[in-house]
């Protein structure tokens, strides 16, 4: 009988020139299809799982297309859980496309975006949260994001949620059992135990929800706006920060409307730096337009550094800083090296708790500034992730938020003296919701939304 699942193929490496390109073939016919065009001393059909074989891929007419290495993975011990052959050919768009063309002619189907991972999910190789981590790992733009995605792929978030579900499941089981012992008036589960359990589960969920803010920062990066008077030293501060930046960061275009001048990696977090014009009152309509834009940038920023020249005759007022309307402003009092030598008295602005003295020129205070930037952006340091999983995905956040609301209602039912059947409803609602996270309860819509975010070949 013909299996109804296609064998799919895609180029798994990015387009462009490179040393090698890898094509991935997955499905019940993967080995047979590659074998038909693979010339080597022994056919792949007789190859053991997890072995690599050198040979040539030829087209139907027998013409050699390329010399390749084929690696065979037998079901279920492969990424997708199906038979998989990875064909490594020479890099370059032309060669890999020719090889794929040959395989398509031989019976493979072109893979859709995310189809390999979708198959892995459907074959039970990973749950939905893990599958989503694959996409996030691929798109990771900072070290912290990469690490979090990897943890999620290893099942950290899933297992934390499963532990939570198990304890809730036990509780709801006992509560429901009670309902059937009508006349004995027996409580299988002490009410104070339930309260404790709900409180524990609730705080686990809250912790996960709180991690989302940090998680989002790790994944998407932080928008950092530098502002201040034209000659306050924004550019030299930027240069100083760049010098300290431990990794070179490239920005993927199209993620923001902002004009990004630079990307900084500090403590594993990507800071996208946006420069703005100074915020001075003006009557020039063109300039006013620019100031208005700057205000908008400041409002949408995650972190604002207001650079102030300590030597300047006119200092910004507290009111001017408050006018940005945010608590994420750091005031960098630049040129501390100069002021140290002069006899000037402390300025009013220095009383502001958000003010830091720095010297872009000597690098003095830059490290403290970076710590402050991280603290404002993340609320905690990225290495501080021993306490549990980090949530980075909006879908997960939504699931956890709804589950958390159900548990709050459960506590309300409990405090309101409601009997077991009401508590059971609240807890079951939380359980059903949490099941969406790992895909235990899933619909076509959820699956499509998840897998359409993938690139072809993954």
């Amino acid at each position, binding site marked *: 009988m013909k299996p109804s699942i296609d064998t799919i193929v895609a180029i798994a490496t990015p387009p462009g020139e490179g040393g090698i390109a890898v094509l991935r073939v997955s499905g019940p016919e993967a080995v047979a299809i590659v074998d038909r065009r693979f010339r080597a001393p022994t056919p792949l059909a007789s190859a053991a799982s997890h072995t690599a074989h050198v040979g040539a891929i030829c087209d139907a007419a027998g013409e050699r297309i390329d010399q390749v290495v084929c690696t065979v993975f037998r079901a279920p011990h492969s990424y997708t859980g199906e038979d998989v052959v990875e064909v490594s050919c020479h890099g370059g768009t032309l060669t890999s496309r020719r090889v794929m063309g040959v395989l398509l002619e031989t019976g493979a189907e072109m893979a859709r975006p995310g189809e390999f991972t979708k198959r892995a*999910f459907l*074959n039970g190789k990973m749950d939905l949260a893990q599958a989503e981590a694959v996409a996030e790992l691929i798109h990771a733009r900072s070290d912290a994001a990469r690490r979090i995605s990897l943890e999620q792929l290893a099942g950290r978030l899933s297992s934390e949620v499963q532990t939570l579900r198990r304890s809730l499941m036990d509780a709801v089981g006992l509560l429901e059992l009670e*309902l059937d012992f009508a006349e004995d008036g027996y409580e299988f589960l002490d009410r104070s135990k339930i309260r404790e359990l709900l409180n524990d589960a609730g705080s686990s969920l809250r912790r996960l929800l709180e991690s989302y803010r940090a998680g989002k920062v790790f994944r998407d990066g932080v928008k950092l706006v530098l502002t201040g008077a034209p000659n306050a030293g924004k550019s030299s501060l930027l240069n100083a920060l760049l010098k300290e930046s431990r990794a070179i960061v490239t920005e993927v275009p199209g993620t923001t409307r902002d004009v990004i001048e630079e990307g900084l990696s500090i403590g594993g977090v990507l800071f996208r730096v946006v420069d703005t014009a100074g915020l001075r009152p003006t009557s020039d309509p063109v300039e006013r337009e620019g100031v208005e834009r700057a205000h908008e940038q400041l409002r949408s920023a995650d972190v604002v550094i207001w650079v102030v020249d300590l030597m300047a005759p006119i200092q910004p007022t507290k009111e001017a800083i408050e006018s940005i309307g945010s608590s994420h402003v750091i005031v960098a009092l630049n040129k501390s090296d100069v002021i140290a030598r002069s006899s000037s008295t402390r300025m009013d602005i220095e009383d502001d708790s958000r003010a830091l003295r720095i010297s872009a020129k000597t690098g003095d205070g830059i490290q403290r500034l970076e710590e402050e930037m991280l603290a404002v952006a993340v609320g905690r340091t990225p290495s501080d992730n021993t306490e549990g999983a980090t949530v980075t995905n909006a879908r997960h956040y939504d699931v956890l938020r709804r589950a958390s609301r159900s548990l709050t209602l459960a506590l309300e039912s409990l405090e309101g003296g409601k*009997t077991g059947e*009401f508590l059971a409803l609240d807890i079951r609602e939380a359980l059903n919701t949490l099941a969406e996270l790992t895909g235990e309860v899933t619909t076509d819509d959820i*699956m499509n939304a998840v897998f359409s975010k993938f690139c072809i070949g993954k």
Partner: protein
Amino acid sequence: MAVSEMKYDVVVGGAGHAGLEAAMAAARMGASVLVVTMDCKAIGRMSCNPAIGGTAKGHLVREIDALGGEMAKIADATGIHFRMLNLSKGPAVWSPRCQNDREAYSREAGKRLGSIEGIAFLEDAVVDVAVEVGPKPFPHKLVGVVTAKGKRVSCRSFVLSSGTFMRAIMHTGLTHEKGGRFGEGASYGLTERLESLGFVSGRLKTGTPPRVSLESIDLPAVEPQHSDSPPRPLSFSTQRIENRLIPMYLTYTSPTTHEALRRGFDRSPMFTGRIKGVGPRYCPSIEDKINRFADKDRHQIYLEPEGYETDTVYVNGFSTSLPEEVQLEGLRTVQGLEKVRMLRPGYAVEYDFFPPHQASATLETKLVMGLFFAGQINGTSGYEEAAGQGLIAGINSALRSRGGGEMFHVKRSDGYLGVMVDDLVTKSTEEPYRMFTSRAEYRLLLRQDNADRRLTRMGAKLGLVESATLARLDAKERAIVRLSTLTSRTTVAPSTINGHLEAVGTETIDAPDKLIRLVKRSEVSLEGLLGVSELWSEGALDFAREGMDERTWSEVVEQVDIEAKYEGYVSRQREQVLRFDSFEEQAIPGDLDYDRIPSLSSEGRERLSRMKPETIGQASRISGVTSSDVSVLMVFLKE
């Protein structure tokens, strides 16, 4: 020709609680019905305890009634003791229960069955079925049955509701005899025949406690338990219970009892391995309870007189198959039973059943079109479970005999009936299945008080509900809308309401408030508020009630009260139903070849091939089918 002389639309094999409902429903739907029973005097007989209802079972009885079945009416007519259980919890888990006069119940059942036009009787047993090749996806199609006395009956549908009678063996101590009930025989041949068609059978065990003499009980030493006052009828169409009510009695076993019974364990058919069938875990025999809960020094025993005239008392909680002398010795250590006379020892009965995954949600078997299973043959225990299945099987047997058309089933979100059948067909069962509140995930919607609002219209559509009953429901629904509108629009002043609030023990109000907000308080009942005449504008309540009788009006008040109090929970439960209903609506073709879906786990594939779920919802509830199997199935069906 003599061989094909008899011809009916529907044949029902067995006239217990399942068969009775099946036959009456089919006949009411216009089918010609033949009831084949081994004993025409044993119709609707209460083989075990003389009671109807109880936790979750009471819900089933109310649903059977709402759908147009008989059980509640028979029980109301012959009840001798009525109680609503679980009153300490919320209304969703209240369950009515009544004790019955055992003989009167059976007489009433027989009378009702006999009064329906279109039902014929045959004192015999079905031992064979005649089949032809069936239309897809059925391998076979039923065309007739053959009885033990050699009669051939041609029919389109056959409801098998044989109770505990197929290859039945009764055990008391180490002695055993053939038979499905005290003083009655067993039936043979059909199991083997069905196995030859591809069915799988199993063995189950159930037990019944000893019966003792009321005269010999020291009544002052046991605790009397009286009926609720006033008693609540089980049937929506019973106006009030006018039967004479008598008390039941409560007593306890003691460590001496346990010691006495333990001494007989070496002669127990359970512990010596004589009984191979699996017994119910939740309705365990007394020896099971002593064995399993060794640290408990007493167990509750209810002494239940089996009727007005009889001296027979059912010893509830003392189900056993120990030797007779051990049973007696044990009983005499129970307070109040020191001088008890045992009229009949308890016994266990072992019988054939067909694991119910072989049937679909209509209770038609997946192998033979026109063959239906109902009751203990599906592995259930209890009259109410049997009656519910009988009703569903009876309805579908009539629909099937008309040829084609849509069959009937109850969704999990529509009733305990639906939960039960769905559990049976998706989980199958390896021990007798009993209905529980815990099994119904939508229990806040599936209350005993609103069974009519959930199911009566379905029954009416099928032709099972009298027009007067439907008219009463319509009037009730209209009154619910009027009263709930009135309640939500009425604002009360502190001066008019505070006296009442104080009287019921809840906080008074400082400013005018919506009446509906007060109804939400647990201490306040709408019924009580109706008694405060100053709250209501002139004629408003009369307008809402519209000349309705006392019983229906009290139901209206109860509905509005419950809906106001639990509004938030109820609406959230409805959301859950909506979310999961989409899975219930995704149908799986009956002839789907699971071998064509390579991504299924091997266990999932095996389970799905065996259970043949009808919907994605059903598939997701089969144990061994993982969530990724369900996703695979969804993706496959979509493509």
